[in-house]
């Protein structure tokens, strides 16, 4: 009897003593001692190819991480396919990544229709669809879709902040809205209507849409001015935002101008429109604008600039999409660090849902990323800012969706 106990005791002693044995290595397809495989789809061609730079920024980020030693000693292999913003293509590429390339999980798949097309599939296959690159509200649904998580503040949240602001500052306002006729535009629109509640019907006097194939939105701006509105909610992507700002000024329309976060870049939107024509515009922000002089000497932004120069030199330093790609990659980096040696898909989701007060290099001061098993919306805070002709001046407190 005694003879048998000693080896067992010895074994137990060694097991309890070494921490490595405690943190057991667990792998799902796509993870190993040396590698973590991540999959992604992005529109590198087609109508939304402007966003393809996000995929390139992410690829550059993981190149940097690999050169610095990887994550917990493992190299990150980032596989990204072009889906041309066409949902059938996204389905095909997602299946390729999961079934053929055997990635551990998908990261930052871009586009609302693209992600909708693979939503059920990813959850049925129990593969994380993490930090999707869209602001639609439906990605925060851990009960029904536990494998899908968004990242950026969703559009409806932002709209509700604007609605609240107007109800407080200009309760008798007449509001005109210009929106892009797709999921992004309509999501903002819905949030705004919901935020105004009963007063939406009386306050909104004109809503017009445009297609991305329209050469200009000049006609729409003229329509909005003739409605007599004194508040303008501008839900447009950068090119059209610049046109709208310029045209409104040129025809002598001076409403309270609310500009959606997507188009708040000083360098890509306000400068082309005309800095003097953009004075007084209000937006919400959660990240630092790379062209805003306020961040010229900011250490976080300088780290981003150094990263761009070294790993993505052909990327534009005035395109906020490239800041976005960097910030969301930093968030995933944190998740992977937290996961340690337990690289199962379940643990990846678990760690993604356990972010506590995480801050990226490029988030506005005070904006913290938090997730929990019932809260799949990592960033829910934004702050209002007003353009003074040179830079965005933040005012008010950091607000959150609730």
């Amino acid at each position: 009897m005694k003879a048998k106990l000693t080896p067992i005791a010895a074994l137990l002693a060694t097991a309890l003593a070494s921490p490595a044995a405690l943190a057991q290595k667990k792998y799902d397809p796509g993870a190993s001692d040396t590698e973590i495989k991540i999959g992604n789809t992005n529109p590198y061609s087609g109508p939304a190819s402007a966003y393809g730079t996000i995929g390139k920024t992410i690829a550059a980020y993981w190149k940097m991480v690999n050169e610095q030693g990887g994550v917990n000693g493992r190299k990150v292999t980032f596989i990204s396919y072009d889906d041309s913003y066409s949902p059938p293509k996204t389905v095909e590429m997602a299946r390729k990544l999961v079934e053929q390339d055997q990635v551990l999980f998908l990261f930052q798949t871009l586009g609302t229709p693209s992600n909708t097309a693979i939503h059920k599939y990813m959850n049925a296959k129990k593969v994380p669809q993490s930090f999707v690159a869209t602001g639609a509200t439906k990605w925060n649904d851990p009960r029904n879709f536990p494998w899908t998580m968004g990242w950026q503040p969703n559009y409806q949240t932002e709209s509700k902040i604007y609605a609240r602001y107007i109800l407080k500052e200009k309760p008798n306002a007449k509001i005109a809205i210009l929106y892009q006729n797709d999921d992004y535009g309509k999501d903002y629109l819905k949030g705004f209507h919901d935020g105004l509640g009963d007063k939406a019907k009386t306050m909104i006097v004109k809503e017009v849409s445009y297609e991305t194939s329209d050469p200009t939105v000049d006609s729409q701006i003229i329509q909005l001015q003739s409605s007599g509105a004194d508040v303008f909610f501008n839900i447009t992507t950068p090119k059209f935002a610049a046109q709208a700002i310029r045209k409104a000024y040129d025809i002598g329309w001076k409403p309270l101008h609310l500009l959606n976060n997507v188009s708040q870049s000083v360098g890509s939107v306000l400068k082309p429109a005309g800095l003097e024509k953009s004075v007084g515009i209000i937006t919400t922000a959660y990240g630092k604008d790379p062209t805003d002089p306020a961040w010229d000497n900011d250490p976080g932004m300088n780290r981003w600039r150094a990263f761009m120069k070294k790993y993505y030199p052909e990327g534009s330093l005035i395109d906020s999409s490239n800041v976005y790609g960097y910030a969301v990659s930093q968030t995933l980096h944190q998740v992977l660090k937290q996961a340690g040696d337990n690289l199962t898909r379940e643990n990846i989701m678990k760690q993604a849902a356990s972010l506590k007060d995480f801050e990226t290099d490029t988030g506005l001061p005070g904006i913290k990323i938090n997730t929990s098993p019932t809260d799949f919306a990592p960033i829910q805070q934004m702050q209002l800012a007003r353009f003074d002709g040179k830079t965005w001046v933040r005012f008010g407190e950091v607000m959150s969706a609730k």
Partner: protein
Amino acid sequence: MDALIHQILAGLATGGIYASLALALVMIYQATHLVNFAQGEMAMFATYIAWTLVDAGMPYWAAFFLTVPAAFVLGVAIERIVIRPVENAPVLAVVVVFIALLVILNSVTGWIYTYTIKTFPSPFPKEPLFGNRYMSSHEIGAIGVTLVVLALLYVFFRFTPLGLAMRAAAQNPDSARLVGIRVGWMLALGWGLAAAIGAVAGMMVAPIVYLDPNMMGGVLLYAFAAALVGGIDNPGGAVFGGFLVGVLENVLGAFVIGNELKLAVALVLIVVVLVVKPSGFFGRVHVTRV
């Protein structure tokens, strides 16, 4: 009433954009009897060349008068190198080559210059004419430039031997060869001129819509419609078509059906016009001998 006038004038401004690209389409059609789907992208690419020059410090007019001949050379080169080898292929195969050109130019431009919008300078004064708030000086100036190009084209085709030779080469290549016209070079010339007109169009359009690789995408459909509705072999008709499409688009979108159905209404209009007048308003009706 004021709103209506405003929409009509804005329609004339966008119509000017369509008209200028439509002229390039008519040019290429007159020379080759084909509609070049890549015309918009060629114009966009030429505008980027101009932008590169301006960005490097060159004054506007120097860049302008350097870009137009450069676009001409580019057009001739494309005809000789890309189109010439497939000239005996079925027409639809040539159309596929045009489509290939379109995607190549778009993709390469996006890769070199990225998709962030760029401002393109305007040679016209910043202040609007007489302080009016309906049309900027540039928009009026662009319409003026389009009309000048139209006049030049009209004179070229009607009164110069070269213009006549080009039309002959397109209409009846065999007979044209028999009378000594170098048909091959006529085609190349046609492409070069179309590219040059496109470059002018692009440089007039860019200050209004901002320069990005997808700048001409939406314009192409309307320019195509304008050219056909006005009569594909009539430059004046194309310009008329451009203004008509621009004004109708604005007025219908603002007052009649709303922006959400604009494209569908444009479709119905096009079909109606073409059913009533199959060669467009001012096109020449072709009589085929049996």
